[in-house]
C-alpha cells in the first residue's frame, strides 16, 4: 500500500477541500432558495425536483470515469436521442415495456462500444471521434423521424419516469443514488479505479507498468453509452414522447457538472463525491431559479458563470498566495 496509499491520501486531502467548497455553495443556494420561495423547503417538492436532473446526473457518473481517463465523450446526448427513437419506434409496433427498457440500454451500450472501438482501435483523440458520432447518432433519429414524433408508449413504461418509490422518491433518483455508490466504490476502492487514475495521470507510465490502458478506456466508453441508454429510458418515460432534438445540449451540461465537481479535464484526478455534490448544486440552482420563474435559458448563464468561477477561483487564489508551483496542466490541481 505504501506509495500508492500516500498518493491516494494526498490527492484526497487536496480534493476534499474542493468538496467542502461545493458543499458550502450548495448550502448557500438552498438558503437563498428557502428565502426566495416558500415552496422550496417541502419534502415532496424537493424529491420531485430531482426528476429534472437525475437523468443527466446518471450520465455524469460514467462521464467522470471517462474524463479522469483523459478522454471525453461529447456524444451522450445524441445516444439518448438514438435510444429514445428506437424505443419510440418499437413501442409503436406494440413491444412491451421490459423489451423497450432492454433496447434502450443495449443500444446505448452498442453506441458506447462504437465510440470506444474507434478511439482505441485507431488511436484517435476521443474529442474528434465523438464530434463525429454526435452528428451520426443524432442524425439517425432525424432520418427516421424528420420533424415528427413518437408519442405512443405503454402505460407501464411511462410509470418508470413518472412513478415514485414509496409514493415519494422518483425511480430515476433512486437508480442514480445506487449508481453513485457503485461508481464511487469502483473509482476509489477497486483496482480498476486505481488503474484509471494511474493512466489518467500518466498514460505512458501506466502502460509500462502493465495496465491494459486501451481495454479500460474501451469499457468506460461502453459504460458511458450504457448509462446514456438508461438515462434515455427514464427521460423518454418521463416526457412520454420522442423527438429528434430530445436532450439537446445535455452533452455539455453533463461535462459542466463533472468539471464543476472538481474533476480535472486534463485527466487523472477527481472524486465521485465532488461530482454528486455538483449534481445537487446544479439541480438546486435550477430548481430555485425555476421557482422564481426564471426562464430556462437564463439558467444557462448562471451555470456557465458557475463553471468558470469554480475553475478560476482556485487558480486566482493560488496566484494571489504567490505559491509558484511547478507549472502543471492548466486548471489541473485544485
Amino acid at each position, binding site marked *: 500500500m505504501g506509495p500508492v496509499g500516500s498518493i491516494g491520501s494526498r490527492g484526497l486531502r487536496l480534493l476534499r477541500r474542493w468538496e467542502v467548497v461545493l458543499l458550502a455553495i450548495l448550502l448557500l443556494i438552498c438558503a437563498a432558495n428557502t428565502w426566495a420561495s416558500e415552496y422550496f423547503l417541502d419534502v415532496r417538492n424537493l424529491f420531485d425536483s430531482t426528476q429534472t436532473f437525475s437523468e443527466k446526473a446518471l450520465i455524469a457518473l460514467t462521464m467522470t470515469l471517462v474524463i479522469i481517463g483523459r478522454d*471525453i465523450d461529447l456524444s451522450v446526448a445524441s445516444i439518448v436521442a438514438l435510444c429514445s427513437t428506437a424505443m419510440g419506434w418499437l413501442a409503436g409496433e406494440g413491444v412491451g415495456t421490459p423489451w423497450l427498457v432492454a433496447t434502450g440500454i443495449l443500444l446505448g451500450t452498442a453506441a458506447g462500444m462504437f465510440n470506444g472501438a*474507434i478511439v482505441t482501435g*485507431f*488511436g*484517435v*483523440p476521443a*474529442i*474528434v*471521434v465523438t*464530434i*463525429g*458520432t*454526435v*452528428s*451520426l*447518432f*443524432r*442524425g*439517425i433519429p*432525424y*432520418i427516421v423521424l*424528420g420533424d415528427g414524433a413518437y408519442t405512443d408508449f405503454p402505460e407501464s413504461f411511462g410509470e418508470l419516469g413518472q412513478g415514485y418509490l414509496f409514493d415519494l422518491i422518483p425511480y430515476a433518483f433512486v437508480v442514480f443514488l445506487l449508481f453513485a455508490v457503485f461508481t464511487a466504490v469502483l473509482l476509489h476502492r477497486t483496482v480498476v479505479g486505481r488503474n484509471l487514475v494511474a493512466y489518467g495521470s500518466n498514460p505512458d507510465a501506466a502502460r509500462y507498468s502493465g495496465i491494459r490502458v486501451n481495454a479500460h478506456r474501451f469499457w468506460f466508453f461502453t459504460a458511458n453509452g450504457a448509462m446514456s441508454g438508461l438515462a434515455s429510458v427514464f427521460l423518454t418515460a418521463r416526457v412520454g414522447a420522442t423527438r*429528434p432534438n430530445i436532450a439537446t445540449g445535455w452533452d*455539455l451540461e453533463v*461535462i*459542466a457538472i463533472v*468539471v464543476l465537481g472538481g474533476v480535472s*479535464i*486534463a485527466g487523472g484526478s477527481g472524486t465521485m463525491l465532488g461530482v454528486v455534490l455538483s449534481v445537487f448544486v446544479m439541480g438546486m440552482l435550477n430548481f430555485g431559479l425555476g421557482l422564481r420563474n426564471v*426562464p430556462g*435559458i*437564463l*439558467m*444557462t*448563464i*448562471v*451555470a*456557465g*458563470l458557475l*463553471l*468558470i468561477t469554480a*475553475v*478560476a477561483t482556485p*487558480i*486566482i487564489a493560488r*496566484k494571489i498566495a504567490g505559491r509558484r508551483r511547478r*507549472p502543471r*496542466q*492548466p*486548471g489541473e490541481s485544485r
Partner: protein
Amino acid sequence: MRSLLRRREAALAIVVAVLVAAIAVRAPVFLSAGSLDTLVTDGAILAIMALAQMLALLTRGIDLSVAANMALSGMVVALLSRAHPDMPVVATIAVAVGSGLLLGAFNAVLIAFLEMPPIVVTLGTMSVYRGLVFWASDGAWVNAHELGEGFVAFPNERLFGLTYIVWIAALVVGALLLLLHRMRKGRELYAYGGNPAAARYVGIDRARLQLLVYLTTGALAGLSGYLWVARYAVAYTETALGFEMQTIAACVIGGVSIAGGRGSAAGCLLGVAFLVILFNALPIIDVSPFWHMAISGTAILVAVIVNARGEARRGVLILARARVER
C-alpha cells in the same frame, strides 16, 4: 512531411471533385450559376469561422463559444439596427467586430493569463453568451422588416457578380493565409502546438499567442454574426446554434489535428468545401435535408480514421520546412 501534407490535401481535393462530378451527373442543375452562387455564399461564413477555429486547434486549444458569440454579436447589431434603422454599415460592422472582440477577450484573458483549459472556458462562455442573447432580446425575434434597409442589403450586394459576403470572406481568408503560412506569428502557432515545452525554450510567448488566437476568433465571430443575421434577415436566440461543431468538423475533415500543431489552411478550406457542397447538394438530388447530420457525422468519422495514421505520428519538423522555403 511536406509531401505528406500535400498528398493528404490532394486526396481530399480529389474526393471533393468526385463528389461534385457525381452530383452533377445526377443533377446537372447543381453546376448552374445560381446554384454555385448560393454555394459560395453559404460557404463564406463557414470558411471564415473554420479558419478561425483552426488557429485555436493549432495551439492545442478549441473555441466552443464561436457560435454563441456570433448569435450575441448578431443580436447586438440587430437591436441597434432596430433602434437606429439608418445607422451606416461601417458603424454596424465596427460594433459587431467590437462586440465579438470583447467576448473573445473574456475567453482570451481566462485562457492566457489564468491558464485555464480552453475547452472549459469556452464551454462556460458558450452557455453564458447564448443566455445573454435571450436576455438582450427578451427571447423575441428581430425580423427582416425591423432591420435597417442598408443593414440587410449590404452583405448581399454584388461586386463582379459575387456577393459582398464572399468578398469579405475572401479578404479574411487571404489575411489568415498570410498569417498562417507567411508570417512568423503563424509559424509560432505551429511550433507551440507541435511542442509547447520546446516552443517555450526558443522564446515563444504562450500567453501572447493565446491572446492573439482567442481575440481573433472572437473578432471574426462578431463579424460573422453580423453577416449571418444580415444574410438570413433574422436574429433570435438560436442563431447559428451548433455552428461551432461545423467549424470543428470542417477542420477535422481537412486534416487539422485536434492535438495541435498540424494542418494547413488549404486543407481546412477543402473541408469547408466538402461540407458545404454536401449540404447544398442534398435537396438538389432529392435527399431529405434530415440526412444532413448523419452524413456529416459519417464524413467526419471517415476523415478521422483516414487521418489516424497521421495523427499518431509525433514531432513535426517545422523548422526544416522553413529552411526549405527560404
